[in-house]
Structure formats: C-alpha cells, structure tokens
C-alpha cells in the first residue's frame, strides 16, 4: 500500500480543533507491516533532520491527522514514528455540524448560572445605602378624655 506522509509541526494547543500546521517534509512510501490507523507506528527511511523537529503528521490515505507520540532512531537513516490520531483536527468539519448542549462557552454565556465559575475573596464588601427621607421632626401628642364640650 503506497502512502504519502506529511511530516509536520503543530503550533497549536491540543485542544484546538483547527490547528495551525506547518509542513516540514513529505514522504512517499509503502506500508509493509500491519499498523493501526488510530495509533500507527511507521518506519521511515530518511536522513532529513527536519523529521526531528516534527510533532505532527498527516496521512491523507488514512484521512487522518496525527500527533507524533514518539520518534525512535532504529539506526542511521531509519526512524520509527509512533503516532496517535488527532480526532479534533481530523473530524473538525463533522464535529462542527453536531448540535450539543454547551456547558461553558467563551463568547456565549449566561452569568446568572451558578456553576461555581466565579470565586470570591473571604472578606466581603459592606456598603450602606440611605433612603432619601425619614423622620425629620418631633412633636407632642396629647390625648384627653371627654367630649370637649362644656355642658
């Protein structure tokens, strides 16, 4: 099985779906041993030292992008690359079509949902707000018995 492998450098965080990828090397070869497409281990023959700067690869024939987990030098010019599929980058277009219940979001949110996102210091702020009016004057109240009339 003939394969084209792009040896690349990924500058984005692992959490990023749409990663910024830089091609370092494009290799063409044949797959001679069995390997997983989720966790492929591939032997490549190259003297290009750019391969050691790589942390990412793409195998279009597999339709997948991969993180390089490890690079072993088997002998001079023969390198074993262990990789693991980057599901976010590989399936980003299909994932984006999916609808979901969003628990937390950077740009669309409701700050009245109490999920413990906001923490607070243990010394609270105390303020007082005075009402505009109150009791201003004092006077006497005298209650007298009787009709108030002289008989």
């Amino acid at each position, binding site marked *: 099985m003939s394969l084209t492998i792009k040896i690349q450098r990924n500058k984005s965080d692992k959490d990023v779906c749409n990663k910024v990828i830089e091609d370092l090397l494009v290799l063409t070869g044949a797959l001679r041993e069995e390997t997983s497409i989720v966790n492929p281990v591939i032997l490549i023959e190259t003297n290009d030292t750019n391969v050691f700067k790589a942390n990412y690869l793409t195998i279009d024939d597999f339709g997948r992008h991969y993180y390089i987990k490890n690079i072993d030098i088997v002998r001079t010019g023969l390198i074993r690359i262990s990789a693991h599929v980057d599901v976010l980058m590989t399936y980003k277009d299909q994932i984006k079509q999916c609808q979901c219940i969003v628990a937390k979001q950077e740009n669309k949110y409701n700050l009245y*949902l109490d999920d413990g996102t906001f923490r607070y210091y243990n010394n609270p702020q105390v303020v007082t707000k005075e009402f505009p009016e109150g*009791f201003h004057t004092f006077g006497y109240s005298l*209650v007298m018995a009787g009709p108030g009339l002289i*008989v």
Partner: protein
Amino acid sequence: MVTDRIQLLNGTILELSDYTIQNNNLTVNKFGKRLLVPDNIVEIDSSIYNDLISFLSTTNQRINPFTQEEIYPEINSNSSIEDTAQAGEQYLNYVDKTIKERFKGYVVSYYLNENTRMIYFFQKTSNASSASIRIIFISNLFFLTYRNSSGSSTSSYFIKLTEVTLSSKPKILQSILDRKCLLYIGTVRENYGNIEQVRFLVLPHDFKYNSDGKTISSDYYYQAPGFLQYFHCDLDGNRKMPLENNWWWGDEESTHAQRVQVSNDRNYTYGVFPFTCVARADGKTIPYVRDIWDIIYAKNLIEFGDIVDDTKIPDNPGGASGTGGGDGDFDDSSDVIDIPYLPPSYASNNMVNFYVPTQIQLSAISRYLWSALDVESFKRLITDPMNAFISLNYIPYRDNNATLAKFVVGNIETDIDVYKTSAQFVEIDCGELNLKEFWGNYLDYSPYTKVEIYLPYIGVKQLDVDEVMGANIKVVYHLDITTGACVCFVKISKGNLNSVLYNYEGNCSVNIPLTSNDFRNTISAIASLIADGGMMVSTAGMPSTVRIGSAIKTLSDVYDTVSGGGKPLVQKSGTLTANHGAMGIQKPYLIVTRPRQCVPAQQKKYTAYPAFITERLGSLSGFTKVDSIHLDNVTATDIELEEIEELLKEGVIL
C-alpha cells in the same frame, strides 16, 4: 378525507367538526381563519407536483424553466430604484401569470399581498383516503430594497422558494414551549425533497425590544437542530430589518439557497419573510393552515401535535405510568399589592380629644393645671383633673395642618389655645432606593450577597436578596399619633412585581409620664424591651445596671449559608421602639454585604463561562465545554468517537 382526531400541543383537541369538506370545499375553521377550496380543484398528481416544484425552484434564477427566457433584467448594486422596482414587478407578474395559467385547476388558493405569494394545493399521498394541504412559498419572499450609506444605490434580491413541511415539528414546538415562548416564526428549507433544516424565531413572554425600540436581542433566537444561522427581524408594522452585524441569508452548506450578504452600511426600507406551516405525520396527514399574521397578532401558540389514537385501551386497568408536566400556563403576571390607605380616624367621635401641642402650649397647660384651677372649676371636674389625661407622648411627627382650639379638661374649657388635630393616622414616606447589581452575575444574589434594612423604631431586618436585587425598594410608615404604633411597609418593584412584600410593626412614641405611677410603668416597659434582646445601651434616666440583650448569638445559632456559607450571622439591632427608637437613626438605610469577586484575567478564555444552551458547534468560537452531545454523522471509529466526546466535555477551542 379527514379522519383523525388531533390533539394540539397546548391541549386543544380538534374534532372532526373543526374541519368540513363538502362538494370539494374544505373549510378549516378552528382558528377563525377559513380556507375555502374552490369546487374545481383536483388532487395534484406527482408529475404536476414535480413540475410545480421545479418551476418554483428556479424562479429565483431569472430564467423561465419552461421557455428558458430571461424573466427580468439583471439587477445589481448599481441599479436605480426605478429599475429595481420594475424588475420586481416583472418578476411578480411572471410568477402570477405562470401560476394561474400553467397550474390552473390545481391550485387551491392563491394568496397575494405586497410581497408574498403563497399557493395552496392538494397532493396525493400514499393513503388514498386522505390528502394534505401543502403550502408553497413561491418566492421566499425576501424582496429586499436597501440603500447604502450614501443613499445612492439600491437593489433587490429574490431568494429561493421554500417548501414548508415540518416532520419533526412537534418535538421542536415542545422545546419552544419548555422555553416559555410566546410565538414563533418558522421556515424550513427543502433540499432535494428532504427537509433538512428548520429555523425558528422565538420570542419569550417577556421579550423586550432593544434600546432602539425596533430590534430584539439575539438571545431570543432559538435554533432548531441542524441550523446555525441567525435570522433577525422585528415585528413592527414597518417590518424594518434590524442592523446588528453583517448577516447571511442562507446556509453555508446549502446548494439551493441563494446567498445574500448585507452589510451594516445600508438602511433597509422593507423586507418581508413568509412563514406558515403544514404538517404531515407518518402515514397520515394533518391539514392545518394558519396565516402567520394571525399567529403574530393572536400572540398565542397554537399548533398541531401528535395524533391521538383513542382506540387503544390500556392493558393495565389502573393505567400505565404516563408522561406529564410542562403544561404550566406560563402566566407570570403579578397583581399589585399596594400600600394600603390610612384607616379612618376616630379622633372626631367626641369621646376623646387629640391635641398636638407645642412646647410652649404644653407649658401653658402645665401652669394651668398646677396654679390656675380655681375652686369653681375644680368642682366641675368631679374628680382628679389628671384623670382626664389619657396619654402624653413625644412622637416623631408634627401635624402642620392642626388647628388652634381651646384646651378642654373634662368639662372645663380653658383659655389656652392648643393645636388640635383630627388626623389620627398619618403616613411617613421615606422614599425609595434602587438596588442595582454590582457584579452582574450570580454573585449578586443569594447565597452570596446579603441585604438588610435598618428601619427607625423597628430595627435591622433581613431582606431576601433575590427579591430586592435590581428592584426599587420603597419604605412607607403608617403611624398612629395617639399611641405611637406604627407599621412599616417595604414595597418592591421589579419586572412584573410591584407589591408590598414586607410589613413590620413598631412603636415610635416616647411616653411622657404625667404622674409617678406613669413613670414606674414607663421604666418597667423599657426594661422589659431590653430583656427581650434589645441592643440599645441604657439611656438617661435608666438604671445603668440594666442588662442589654445579647448582641451576638452562639455559634450554633448563627452559622448559616448567607455570605458564602459558614459566615456568622450577627444581629445588628434589637427592638428599637419607643424611647430607644427616638434616640436612634431616623432614616432607613440598606446594609449590603456582597462578596468581592475574584476573577483572573482572561478567565473566560481558559475556563469559559456557564452557558447551558443548545447550539451547533460550528456556530461557536473560542473555548467550549460540551455538556451533552450526539455525534451524529461523524464517521469515526468507536474509539475515536469516545475520544471526541471526552475531549469535547473537557473543553476544546473552536
């Protein structure tokens, strides 16, 4: 033709009597809107149907699908207003003519107004005993005329037609109902015969316009599954389209819809979009026709729902468990509980006389009693003149409307002029405060923020922060000047709420002892108050050994969740009535104890903020954590699917 009993989602049952079909006349009269089917209608067969769909599908391409002739000239952003209007007119005339000529006899009803063309027709279904009414929008009526910022350019767009068939609508409607929504506008895009996407505009009961009075917030938009675009429109009479951001009509993935981008530099003159619905259940048809304007103006969500099959009898005579809930009436109206009127005074019943003497008048009365009472007058008193004095109080109120009258003791009218009043009950309005949110998030509410109120002659009382935050708080006292008894009303106004939520009683009179016996009673009353937990320190004339009430309760008493939990609740005052109250602060005030928020810079970038909304991931950007997702149509292996779900729940950057 119509054989089913239909239950609407709002519980309304449509009986057969709601539909009548006679002599090929179909009348749907349940909702007050009658649709009459002419006598000469025949059921449309599939070839005619396809022909019609084909025709309607290509009307936006300016080419007559049957003659391949150009329908109207090219219109672009440089076209004049006149050219635009002319092109629009030509287009609509063309559609009119074609519909009437080519599909004569098949069209049930043809609606035409300024911008909207709709046709109704029958289509045969697999069930020969039924037929469905389908509503087709000929031009998906987005006939848009706009001017750019310089006012020099206009153009028109005709967007593709839309067939409206909502197979999943009941479920969507239930979602709308769950969200307490008032009405909706929906269209569905048809894609090669398969309905793919639904869009809805949903307005909740309490929707409000933006500050411009025209537009509504995008928060009110509900996106049905599979659709990601916003559609902004207001509902005022001008049908003026709001300008918020550049927006797109159409969907990125659509191969049918013509995409129109409109920038913010244009001033729309009008734009209309069509909306209505028709349903077709599995194996059955539900005729339902409704004019959208009825829906809007009725402001009543009335829709079709699942067909009720009442022929099934449960095996369990006791009845199997069933579904329920969600059928609240969403009535969030609130009756106004206002501050009551003052009660009538009994000051004029001639049994007692109410005076509000000044200091000088009081001195004159005193001098009269102790020196000016002659023997003749004394005889007319019958008894001790002090028995005529019911009470003398010092109160925080002066009646400016009192009138001068001769002071009367028993049966003796003296020469002393004293202010006399008939107003036994008076109102003291302390005004109102608006308590605004400080953080603008949940920390402004319980259990994080605490609000107390100090009320003169009553003390410090705790208010429910959830009730008073963001509200106008009004304080009014009603005072009985003869006894000093007072009631304080705290009225809360927020949203629909405009009611008295708190009532406190107190006493604001300082009793002035007239005899030694009175003085003993006064001291006894004060001591009793203090023993009940009053916190005021002893006052002049009181024994210094009187023990004040406990200011801080024991730990077991006071720990609660207020102020973040575990904070001691300190009693800030005891009973502040009478003598104590007179020496206290005379204006009410709020004591707000709020947490000090601790937010690291760019927190939302790293942890995001709570959302709990249903969205398509493609419509989001930035850090996102998923609560629940169905990874439909993701062609990954099982292990990969698990990893995708796990990563989405941990948070990804879109």
